[in-house]
């Protein structure tokens, strides 16, 4: 897969927001490649910049926010600075997104059938002909999509409104909308956070199944390392607007090299060894206003030293792994 071109290539992305308290750099020099067919997990706590990074990819950053630098290439095509019109023909068709909470992401005043159908009518070139024909063809596709996400009796349920579905079904409906045009890349923003555990697994299995059927790439934004371990080929860990560690999932989770990743893994309860105390990471995520140039994790790090107050670059540590720490591996335990 090394010779293949990445389907999405983010490099040195900067996204900023002007707030009344000052300039917030929500995304600071994020670089990430996603290969065709690959599932990449992006983990980080709330406010680490993971959602903003992919809102930037979708071109959904609005004033007072803007993309201040860097590049986002989708199949080699630059997205930063692209016209709204060209962007619109890309969104929903080639790059699709699902949001954290389907209850708020689905329009309460429109039927779910309508909400799937309108993506198809906007993008699918196979749906053509007279208005009546288009609706008929689109309707057939809507039913097909609803069957794909396992909604029972789709012929009648497509006339229902979002509030008439259960939480898990709503999440699946949202996935059906995102996948309606068979996109090449799906950005799933916390697809399971709003669901209970049994439904979580269903939804993730569904995404994995469809990913394999359609051969699309998936970016799974989550704060659940367990989900990453189970479903993702590679993982990028974000902290305070930066990617601080990335690499193949097994190797990153098995041998975390950034003190933050190590801390994250230590703070997960271990079912096999319940006597072991959970060790939370001390301290708070820094405010993203007026940041110092040094390592973002410096205030919470056990192994900090003088050099950490200088800018820390991403370092390649082999096996496709990178880390933003001046003394990586040294603390692998």
């Amino acid at each position: 897969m090394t010779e293949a071109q990445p389907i999405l290539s983010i490099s040195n992305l900067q996204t900023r927001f002007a707030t009344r308290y000052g300039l917030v750099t929500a995304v600071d020099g994020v670089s990430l490649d996603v290969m065709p067919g690959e599932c990449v997990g992006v983990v980080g706590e709330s406010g680490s910049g993971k959602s903003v990074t992919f809102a930037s990819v979708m071109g959904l950053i609005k004033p007072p926010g803007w993309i201040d630098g860097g590049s986002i290439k989708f199949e080699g095509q630059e997205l930063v600075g692209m016209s709204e019109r060209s962007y619109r023909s890309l969104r929903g068709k080639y790059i699709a997104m699902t949001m954290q909470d389907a209850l708020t992401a689905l329009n309460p005043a429109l039927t779910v059938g309508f909400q799937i159908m309108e993506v198809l009518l906007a993008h699918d070139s196979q749906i053509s002909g007279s208005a009546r024909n288009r609706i008929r063809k689109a309707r057939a596709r809507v039913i097909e999509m609803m069957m794909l996400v396992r909604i029972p009796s789709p012929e009648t349920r497509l006339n229902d409104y979002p509030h008439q579905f259960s939480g898990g079904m709503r999440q699946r409906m949202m996935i059906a909308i995102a996948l309606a045009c068979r996109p090449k890349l799906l950005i799933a923003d916390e697809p399971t956070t709003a669901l209970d555990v049994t439904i979580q697994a269903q939804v993730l299995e569904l995404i994995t199944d469809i990913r394999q059927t359609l051969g699309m790439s998936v970016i799974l934004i989550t704060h659940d390392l367990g989900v990453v371990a189970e479903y993702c080929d590679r993982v990028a860990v974000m902290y305070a607007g930066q990617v601080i560690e990335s690499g193949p999932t097994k190797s990153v989770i098995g041998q975390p090299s950034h003190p933050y990743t190590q801390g994250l893994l230590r703070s997960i309860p271990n079912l096999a060894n319940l006597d072991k105390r959970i060790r939370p990471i001390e301290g708070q995520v820094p405010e993203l206003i007026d940041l110092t140039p040094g390592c973002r994790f410096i205030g919470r790090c056990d192994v900090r030293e003088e050099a950490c107050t200088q800018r820390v670059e991403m370092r390649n540590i082999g096996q496709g792994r990178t880390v933003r720490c001046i003394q990586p591996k040294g603390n692998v335990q």
Partner: protein
Amino acid sequence: MNFGKLIERLAQLIPVLLGVMVIVFFMMALTPGDPVDIMIGEQPISAEQEANLRHDMGLDLPPVERFIKFLGNAVTGNFGLSFFHRRPVIDVIAERLPATIELSLVSIILAILTSIPLGVLAAVKKNTIFDRVSTVGSLFGVSLPGFWFGILLLMLFAVHLRILPVSGRIGYAYEVDAVTHLLLIDSLIAGRLDTFANALSHLFLPALTLGLPMAAILMRVTRTSMLEVMSQDYIIFAEAKGISRTRILIRHALKNALIPTVTVAALETGSLLGGNMIVETVFGWPGLGRLVVESIFVHNYPLVQAAVLFYAVTYVFLNFFADILYTVLNPRVKL
């Protein structure tokens, strides 16, 4: 929609209407001033004649009996004779009603057609010059009292510029056969464009005066609820679907934003009915509102009772229809 529920909701209106009748009847009966005295005026009349007159008009009965009689008659549409016109109240009202309906409808349509697009635009162009100007404009619209604003308009357009008529509903030379009794429609049926234009020129200023406060409030409500809706996740999700901006605004945002607007519009139509009395008086509009004002001055009880009842019933039904429209816009709410 559930038909049984609809009937149930309609049945719930009955106690409301009954309450309205009680209030209307006793409020008029308790008003000081005796209608018989007013009718007689300065004419010399014997005490016997006066008693007969009082008896004819049913004013010698105790209030409770009068109310029961009133209730029974009201259900059959018989509101008695207008003291002043010596004709059935229902006929007098029917004669004046079309003018009021025409004026109110045009005002409401004008208000809705301007306020909703302006409110959407102000929300989309939030914090621009357009938004600020329309905010200040709507503040004026709500604050200007109708009697004062109407007179200002009259002075400018009718007295100084002389481009619009001062009062009335239609010029003498422009009469057409009455079909619907709404002049704008009747003139079109008769194919008389000159009549249509004349009726419109008479209608314009009163409709503007009457509709302005409603338009101003609806605009504010639409703007606020649009802004609220535009920040919802489902709008971001709709954008992520790659559908056009106009479609997002109209299909996704406006349908949700109209939910509060509909409720306010129904309430505002109520105050518009009240505003009718002032505007019709200012512009000499031959409608129900002016008739009611005149009737109050001469203690014409039966007519005022019938008219106020008519206003109340209209208001109750308007809110009923708003409730129905509400369930259409908001599928989460059941009737």
